Every structure is written in C-alpha cells, then in structure tokens.
C-alpha cells in the first residue's frame, strides 16, 4: 500500500484486488477499479492537481462529483486528448494518462503564479480595460497571455472515435438515479409506464452507494440493488448509466450525453465513445440532487480545502482519506455526519467549527459524539499553507456575520471540510422555464412552479432527509405516471429509514470577514478566479444586474457554470447593493448543464456524412469519366470532364465548342419535374404562370414564368402537355422544392376546389440534353418509333417513344440555343441511355459537357438563371413582360401595377461586352456611368453572369442595369474595387448567339 498512503485497507465500494496503473504529470501511480481519477490521486497523496485559470494559484480537488470547479485536467494524449476534464468524473482505467492544465512549466512550479503583476493585471473586465487600445498591439499581448491563460489544449488530430445520436420516447423520464430517482422509477415503472432513467454515474444509487443510512435495516446500497434489479426486469424500462441530462428544451424535449466508452482506454471496435440522446418525454421527474457549497474567506482555495460531502464520499465510497487531520467548517447539520464518517475512516478531526451560535440537531450531535471539539458561533477566517493547506485560523463571528470578535485561534490541519449549505440542482427545472424561488430557511433556490410537464423530487427540491427523498420520489414517480395516462398509478410504501430527527436550522452565511490587516484573495468562484473584491468592484462600477455582473466578472461562466460559486456570488452582490438575494435573482440557466463535447453534438454528421448527397442515375459514369463535380443544392453535378493532359479551361472550351459545332450531351436530371394531372390542370397552369396555357396542344411544350404574390419572379421552365389532362412541369434545379411547396399551398389551401393532382417526378426520370447541329442525326440512331424530322417534330414539340429500347419522353427544347432535344427515361435506365447516346454519337464526336459549358452556352443565348432570378427581378425586368396575359388572373398579377414595379428606371436585363473586345468582365461587379465620380458612386446595375465566349471569342456578360433596354450601345463601367478591376462595357442585346432563333428551329 506504499503507493497509496491515503488509502484504507478495506471499505468503500472499490475493488481492492484490482489494481490499475495510471500516469499523472509524468509520474506513475496506482489506483483501484472503481476509483475516479480524483480518488486515486488523493489516495496517492497528490494534492496539487491544477493551477487556476487567471492567477495560476495551486488548486486541489474540491468536490467529488460533477460540480468540481478546480481539478480540471488534460485527459489522455494524442488524438483522444481532451481538455477541461473534471478529475472527479473520470473513471480510472489501466494506463490512463492525465496532465495538469494552466501551468507552465509545471503544476508545482509555475511562472505565472505568485507574480504580483498578474493579479494586478486582472481586475474584472480586464480585457475591456487593459488591452482595448491600441488595437494594433493586441496580437503581441495575445501571444503572451495565451501562454498564461486558457483552459487546456484541443487535440490537433482528427478524433478517431465514433459518436452516435439517437431519438427516444417515453412516458416518464427520470433524471438522476439516487434515492429519489430510483423511488420515482419504481413508482412509475410499477404503474406500467414506459420510462427512461438516466444517471450520470457508472452505477445507479447516487448517495445510496455510500453516504446514506440504512434502509429497511440493511445498507442503503442493498435497497438500491434490489430496486435496480426490479427495474431491469421491467420490459418498458430503460436504464442509462453514465448519462448526463444536459438540456431541457421545448415540449419536454431533453438531451442526454451518454458516456458509452469514456471509462475505457479506447472504445471497442464500432462502439461509440459517446451517444447523444434526444428524448421526448410526456412527463419528467427531476431527481438531480443538490450541490454543497463553500464560504468566502481568505485563501479559501488552497489544495486541501474540500466540500465536506466530498471528503465523506472519498472516505465511504473509495476508502480514501482526503487528509490526515481535518477541520470541519459548517453552518448546518449535514457536515456532522461527514465529520463522524471521516473520523471513522481514520482522519483526525481536530474541530468542528460551526457558524451557528447554538447547538446542532440531536442526530447531528449524536453522530459527532463527544470526542471532537466543537466551536459554536465561530468561523474559519483564513488559511495557511505553501503549495497546500497546513493550518486554518478560526475566530468568533458576531451575530450579523460581518465582523469578528475575540482572538484568532490556529488549527494545524491538511484538510478543511466546508459546508456552507446546499443548493438544490434547479438548473434543468429553470431551463424548462421554471422560475426557482429563494427559500430563506435553506438559504438556497428551490424549484418554483413548473411550466413544462416536470416535477422535482428529493434534494433537488430541497428535501434533505433520506426518508424524505424516498417518499418524494415515490410520490413524484406515481404522479408523473398518472399525468402520463397511467391513472391507476399508486404511490408505493416508503421503506423504513432511521429517524433523523429534526435538524437544527442552518445559518445563512456567505462570506466571512478577513482578520484585520489581512489582505488576501477571498474567492467566490474557484474556476473563473472571481473574488469577493471583484464582485464588489463591479457593483461599484455600476454592474448591478446579475446578468451584467456575470459577463463583466465571468462569475459562473466556467465549465462548471458556477455550480458552487453562483449563489455565494449573488449573495455578495446583494449585500453590496443593500438588496435581498431574491431581488437580485439568478442568471438565466441555459443548456448545457454539464460540458458536452462538440463531437457528441455532431454525431455522425461529419466528413461525407455531413449532409446527404443527391446523385443522378448517371453519376457512376461521370465519376468513371473523371468529371469534376460541383454541388447544386444537395445534387452533385458534373462541372466538366477534363481529358488526360487537359486543363480546366481547355475542357470547358472544348465542351462548349462541341455543342455549337457538332453535338454534346449533358445530364440535366436535376431539373425539377412535376407531374400535373386532373380536369383543371390547364386552369391551374393559367393561375400559376403569367402566360396562357389553355391553347397549348397535346404534344407541345411552352416556356413559362411564375411569380410570387409580390410580383417578383419565382421560377421559370417549360411545361409540356402529355395528354388532355396531363402536363409535365419543369423547374430550375435550385427552386424545385420551393416551387413544389408553392403549388401545393395553392392547391391545398387556396383553391382546394380545383381537380388537380401534382407529384414530384424529379427522381423518376433521368434527363439528358442532346444539343448541337448534329443532335438530330444522333437522335435518329436512338429511336425508331418517333419521326424526328423538323416537320414532324418542330421546336417545342413533345413525343413519347422508345430510346435505345427504353420507353421515354422526347422534348425538343433548347437551353443552349442550338438544335437540341431532351430525353427522359425512367432513372433505372438512365445510364443505359447515356451510354447508348455516346455510342450513337461516336461518329459525330459526341461530347459530354458539364455545368461550366452549360453556363457559357446559356449566357451566350441570354437565358436567365439564379443570378438573374435573384428574388428582386420582375418578369418585365428580365424581358418577359409581354408574356404576361392580360386576359386572365395569375399569382402576383395584382402586384404588377405597384409603382415600385412599374418604375421605368427599374434594372433590366441587358447584355454586356467589353468596350475593348478583350478584357474580362468581372462577375458581380457594380455598374456605374462614370467610374471617376466621387464616392459614393451611384450604382445603376450589376453584372449577374460573365464568361469568356469561345464561340464569339470575346468576354461577354449579362447584367441588370437601370433602364437598361434604353441604353443599347451605351458605354458603362463595371467596377470591382475589392479586386481592383474596372472595365468599360458596352450595353447590348442579351442574346449574343442567333437572336432570331434560326438554329434551334433548324
């Protein structure tokens, strides 16, 4: 046992026969299975565990649970390293490696600590005050400060582990598996409710494991084991261990982080390290327990100062003596039991310092017995020690608690157990919009009226006796079950517990005045190094709202969210303002209640699972052909197909020219396709498009433009009439979803009387554009049941037939302005058709082309896409004004006569060419009349599309320019000051190629 000088040979609930080796700050130590890193460090006699955040003061282990503010370590090394881990929450495993944080070069010798200038540099708001000016020097300050400040380091490598999500549903979610939580689970479970019980420890039982008295005459942990066994046997009960409920959201949605494999050196194959549960619970029982708190006194942060309940836990659960000789400082009865347990574990209890002038309750007095000195009406006023505690100074406290009487008395000790009262864990209740209320008797906030379907039970609601917690839990569980619909739920009988008698009232004491002349730091919040003086200074500087105080001083902003420091901080602020604590109130409680890793929140949504990808039926071919892909919404589209040795532009140029001179094919499956059927289909089209549809013949298609209700263009595309009451609408790729929702809105909400049925068939059809002067010759080789001659199938004709053996549809439409077709076949045959088309077009050197070539071709033809359909342009702006029918109503028509939409100075679509015939037009550039005019130079338009035209052998562009159609031939300037570009441009017709449309009608 030499390696563990503070470990008792027996006792606790650890496995004394299973020794585990671990390394802390490079030194090897031993612990036992069942230890936490904190208990193992204490057993080994390691007292200084970390340095504090701001002042680099040595800190030890302060707590035994999730409330730990000080003992934050860097856990593991390499890719799995994790900063800011509470040593009290780390289950020991063999080979564990941990290191101290916030210290350089080491925890025992730290350059940042002790240097007085550090402390002077860091009053509250010090970043605001000290380093605000001059801003240019900030990088220099930062370089120094980063070394001294900060909270551990993030790993540099990618996280190798898996993180899972899961949704869950239950009738009753019980948060916490201590006495109240297990009782609630028993009650709800016996009623037949579907329940989830989440506990943050490796085993259920909470304080029943070691701290609580006997139940039904047997150790409490045996009662817990029986309860867990009963719950495990219930089919509708899910018990989740190592699971922290960290967020309580709307409609009883709660989030849990389950630490599936954090207690292992590394997860098993395919095992997630952590799992995020998103639970929807009809009812919730919050059995989250309570957190003990400390007092504010001089040097109250030394290693060796610990919550009384924590020292008790180390003794009872881990058989660890947290010190050799201890002093207990309390203002309530709970520390007496702790003192007794410490004495029983072999720690010399030098004295119990009770701030209350009177006697403790009978049970507390009995527990303490007669062998231990007790000083009533006294307080610990200061501590001594170098790296760790060596003595405390004690003095009598006056009635109001603001001054000391009599002389100081010193007690040598290496452990000071503090108990300043208990804070019920109201955080989740408050996240659920409950308003905690201040209880004077407990000097703590307790749950107020619930807003959501939740109730608190046990010490979470301020019930601190074992019998009370069990009864509370039983009642809360039964009530929750009844509320969830299990009306017959009964409250089970409460097992027999020892009579704890009436506790003596606590004394609300927050802060102990320092001995005269002693100017030492008196900490309110150990994690963020906020002192009483900081809070008082902030209040004098006008930070009177608790929310402002929090942000100015950083009180409660650490990873522990002020679990131990917040309420004392409020009390100090209240006193400084001459107000009551309820008047000051609490800060808003927000998720997460405990730290959650980013990886857990991300879950599977990383790497190529970040978001789903939509692939066309020909995707595999594109990949094999070496296409570069570009995202279009969630779709991946081929951007260009570079041949070996070809550059990006070479490929795009070649593909573009091929379409103009021979033939190309392009995967256009991503365009939205909506099947429209029903007797009122034509009427429906009339109402959603600006142009008229009644006279469109079967086997014909037409270009249409649709507006939003405010008169702005929503989308465009062609719609074909396949049969008398059967149409196929196409939309742009980007707007397919929005158009579908828009049409469904009008059919379901506005015009339910129309006999029209629509369904998206985007995914059903693979769509291939075949474009170029040779396209008809290729088509002739693909189909033998359609006459594709110009006479039989003119421009905007539609036919059904067979293509390479596959039944499909043929549309004679053109986006490029060339003679062109689009073939649709069921997607399962898409790749077959694509390959057949390549084969059929071989002799014409058929060329697959991607979105880059497509974009150039359409720009040459003056077709509008997203840059022009930008949510600000009307149909008239884009040159479609004359399409709008005056003979019918359509969506958006009523807005067209609004003055803003008829203004003759509106920006209109125009073509742009460089005045010198060769300078590229910068995409997105602003258009001005006089580039040299004083700023701000009025911008009369912008470049919406720009490219080099391989066919015209000049740069071209499209733009929207104020009164642009009246400016043909005018010279304007495209300015892009961020890129230092300035190009004189001439305004032209936006259709650069074949404005008469002879090619596409050929």
């Amino acid at each position, binding site marked *: 046992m030499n390696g563990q000088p503070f470990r008792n040979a027996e006792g606790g609930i650890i496995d004394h026969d299973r020794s585990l080796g671990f390394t802390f700050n490079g030194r090897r130590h031993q612990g036992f299975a069942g230890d936490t890193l904190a208990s193992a460090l204490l057993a080994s006699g390691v007292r200084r565990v970390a340095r504090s955040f701001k002042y680099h003061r040595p800190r030890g282990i302060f707590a035994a649970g999730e409330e730990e503010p000080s003992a934050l370590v860097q856990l593991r090394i390499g890719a799995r390293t994790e900063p800011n881990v509470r040593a009290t929450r780390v289950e020991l495993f063999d080979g564990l490696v941990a290191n101290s944080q916030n210290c350089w070069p080491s925890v025992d010798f730290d350059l940042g600590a002790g240097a007085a200038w550090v402390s002077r540099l860091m009053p509250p708001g010090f970043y605001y005050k000290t380093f605000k000016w001059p801003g240019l020097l900030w990088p220099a300050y930062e370089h120094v400060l980063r070394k001294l400040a900060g909270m551990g380091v993030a790993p540099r490598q990618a996280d190798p582990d*898996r993180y*899972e*999500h*899961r*949704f*869950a*549903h239950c009738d009753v979610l019980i948060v916490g598996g201590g006495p109240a939580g297990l009782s609630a689970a028993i009650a709800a479970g016996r009623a037949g409710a*579907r329940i989830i019980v989440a506990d943050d420890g490796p085993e259920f039982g909470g304080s029943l494991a070691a701290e609580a008295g006997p139940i039904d005459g047997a150790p409490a942990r045996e009662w817990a084991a029986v309860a867990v066994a009963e719950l495990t046997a219930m089919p509708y009960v899910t018990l989740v261990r190592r699971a922290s409920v960290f967020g309580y959201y709307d409609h009883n949605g709660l989030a849990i982080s389950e630490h599936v494999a954090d207690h292992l050196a590394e997860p*098993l*194959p*395919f*095992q*997630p390290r952590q799992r995020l549960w*998103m639970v*929807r619970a009809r009812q919730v029982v919050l059995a989250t327990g309570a957190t003990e708190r400390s007092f504010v006194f001089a040097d109250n942060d030394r290693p060796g100062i610990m919550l009384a309940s924590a020292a008790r836990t180390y003794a009872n659960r881990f058989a660890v003596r947290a010190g050799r000789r201890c002093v207990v400082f309390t203002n309530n009865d709970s520390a007496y039991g702790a003192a007794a347990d410490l004495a029983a574990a072999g720690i010399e209890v030098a004295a119990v310092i009770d701030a209350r002038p009177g006697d403790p309750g009978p049970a507390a007095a009995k527990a303490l017995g007669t062998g231990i000195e007790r000083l009533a009406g006294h307080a610990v006023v200061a501590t001594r020690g170098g790296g760790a505690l060596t003595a405390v100074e004690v003095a009598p406290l006056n009635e109001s608690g603001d001054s000391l009487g009599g002389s100081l008395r010193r007690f040598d000790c290496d452990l000071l157990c503090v108990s300043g009262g208990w804070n019920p864990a109201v955080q989740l209740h408050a996240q659920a919009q409950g308003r905690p209320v201040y209880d004077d008797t407990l000097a703590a906030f307790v749950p107020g009226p619930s807003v959501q379907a939740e109730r608190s039970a046990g010490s979470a609601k301020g019930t601190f006796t074992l019998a009370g917690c069990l009864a509370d839990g039983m009642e809360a569980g039964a009530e929750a079950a009844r509320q969830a619909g299990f009306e017959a739920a009964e409250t089970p009988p409460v097992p027999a517990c020892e009579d704890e008698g009436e506790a003596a009232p606590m004394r609300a004491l927050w802060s102990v005045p320092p001995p005269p002349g002693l100017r030492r730091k008196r900490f309110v919040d150990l994690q963020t190094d906020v002192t009483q003086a900081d809070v008082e200074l902030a209040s004098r500087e006008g930070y009177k709202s608790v929310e402002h105080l929090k942000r100015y001083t950083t009180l409660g902003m650490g990873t522990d969210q002020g679990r131990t420091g917040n309420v004392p901080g409020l009390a100090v602020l209240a006193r400084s303002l001459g107000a009551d604590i309820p008047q000051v109130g609490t800060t808003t409680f927000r998720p997460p209640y405990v730290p959650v890793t980013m990886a857990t929140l991300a879950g*599977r*949504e990383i790497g*190529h*699972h970040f*978001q*789903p*990808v*939509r*692939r*066309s*039926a020909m995707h*595999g071919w594109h990949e094999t052909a070496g296409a570069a892909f570009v995202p279009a919404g*969630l*779709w991946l589209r081929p951007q260009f197909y570079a041949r070996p040795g070809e550059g990006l532009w070479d490929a795009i140029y070649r593909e573009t020219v091929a379409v103009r001179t021979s033939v190309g094919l392009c995967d256009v499956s991503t365009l939205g396709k909506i*099947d429209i*059927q*029903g*007797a009122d289909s034509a009427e429906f089209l009339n109402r959603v498009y600006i142009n008229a549809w009644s006279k469109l013949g079967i086997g014909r298609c037409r270009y249409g433009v649709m507006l939003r209700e405010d008169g702005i263009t929503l989308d465009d595309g062609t719609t074909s009439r396949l049969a008398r009451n059967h149409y196929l609408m196409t939309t742009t790729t980007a707007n397919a979803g929005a158009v579908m929702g828009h049409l469904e809105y009008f059919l379901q909400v506005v015009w339910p009387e129309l*006999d029209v*049925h629509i*369904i998206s*068939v*985007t*995914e*059903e*059809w*693979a769509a291939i554009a075949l474009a170029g002067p040779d396209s008809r010759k290729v088509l002739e080789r693909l189909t*033998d*049941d359609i006459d594709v001659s110009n006479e039989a199938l003119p421009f905007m004709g539609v036919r059904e037939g*067979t293509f*390479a*053996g*596959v*039944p499909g549809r043929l549309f004679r439409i053109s986006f490029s302005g060339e003679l062109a077709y689009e073939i649709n076949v*069921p*997607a*399962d*045959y*898409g*790749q*077959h058709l694509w390959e057949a088309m390549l084969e059929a077009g071989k002799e014409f050197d058929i060329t697959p082309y991607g979105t880059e070539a497509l974009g150039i071709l359409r720009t040459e033809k003056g077709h509008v896409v997203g840059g022009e359909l930008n949510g600000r342009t009307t149909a008239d702006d884009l040159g479609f004004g004359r399409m709008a029918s005056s003979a019918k109503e359509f969506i958006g028509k009523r807005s067209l006569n609004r003055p803003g939409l008829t203004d003759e100075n509106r920006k209109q679509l125009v073509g742009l060419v460089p005045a010198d015939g060769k300078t590229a037009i910068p995409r997105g550039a602003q258009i001005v009349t006089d580039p040299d005019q004083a700023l701000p130079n009025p911008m009369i338009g912008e470049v919406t599309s720009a490219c080099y035209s391989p066919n015209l052998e000049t740069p071209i562009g499209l733009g929207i320019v104020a009164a642009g159609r009246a400016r043909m031939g005018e010279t304007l300037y495209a300015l892009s000051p961020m890129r230092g570009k300035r190009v004189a441009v001439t305004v032209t017709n936006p259709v650069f190629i074949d404005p008469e449309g002879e090619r596409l009608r050929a």
Partner: protein
Amino acid sequence: MPEMPQRCSALFDAYQTGTFGAVPEDGPGIQLAERRGLAIIHLAGPGGDENFRTAVKGCLGCEAPVIPNTTATADGRCLLWLAPTRWLLVSARDAPGDLERDLSAALASHSGAVTDVSSGRTVIRVTGRDARQLLAKGCPLDFHGSRFKPENCAQSILGAINVLLHATGDGTAIDLYCARGFALSMWEWLTDAAGEFGYSIDVAIQG
C-alpha cells in the same frame, strides 16, 4: 428494335453482400437488403369518395386505406397511405408499365392521377433484433412496438433524408423508401450506423 435492358438500381455499384461491423456471438443485429424490381405507383384521388375507393379495390383487389399511416395489402399488392388524397402502390408481381396502365384505365372516369415512380424510389429492407434501434439513430419517430405497429407506415426523416417507412408483415422487417438520388447516401448512413450492432448485407430481394 433493341431489347429492353435490365433496370439498374441506384445501389448497384455499392452493393456488396457479407457480414460487417461488431458482430456479436449470436449473429448480426441487423440485416439489410435492397428490394429490387418493384412496381411502385403513386396514386392520387379523392380518398373520401366511395366510388373512387371501389374502383381502386376493383382494379387492385386492395383497399386504399383512409386512416393515416396505415397500409392495406392483398394479393401481392400493397397500398401505403401518404396523404388524405395520396397513396403509394407497391407490387412485387406487376410490371410498372402494366400496373400504371391498368389502374389508369380503371380510374378513367374518376378524378385522380396514376404516376409510375418505380425508378424514383429505392427500397431498403431493414430486419434484425436491433432494426428499430438502428432507425432511432436518425429518425424521430417513436419506434416502440405499441406505436409503430405491423402494417403501419409513416413518412419522416432518416439522417437528413426524407423517408417512407413501412412495418411489413409482423413488423420485424421495416422497408425504407427514399428518393433514388439519395439512395447511396442513405445506404452509407445505414451501413455506418449499423456497425455498432453488427450487420449483414443480404442478397437483394427480387420483388
């Protein structure tokens, strides 16, 4: 005229049978298999109209269910509720074109629409003792046996992909229908998420 080629599944390239992941001693917790060659027809019409439903039943031998999120199966054909006026007809024994034509003819005198979407949907069958646990990783539905019952269907989200789920037979096999374009992403999601339970990819089911 060339012969009609084989239909090609969106998962064709990725599909590899075998056993993967952390397989426990009692075998993989998940079995995955694609259902191929199905006729899948979208049917729209007035669900509240007795005559319409009679015509549907007369043609298919199978009712168009009016209770949301339920299905009706008869004679190898299944109608899944999608919306008050929409159903998905799935048949393992019909050719898509034939079924579309027959149903259209049967409903010619009714308001309604029959649309072949056989190519536009990919169907993946998930079975095994952990099937519902797997789906709960990415789908917010309540998969408890009392809530998602045999022959129930539901439309929801899996991962970030819209999905139609169908608890077939006694509810142990759940068929997932997703848009073809998302099929590979959904497959990758499923096979990654199933690793924890151990899973097998079985030979694709014809029909």
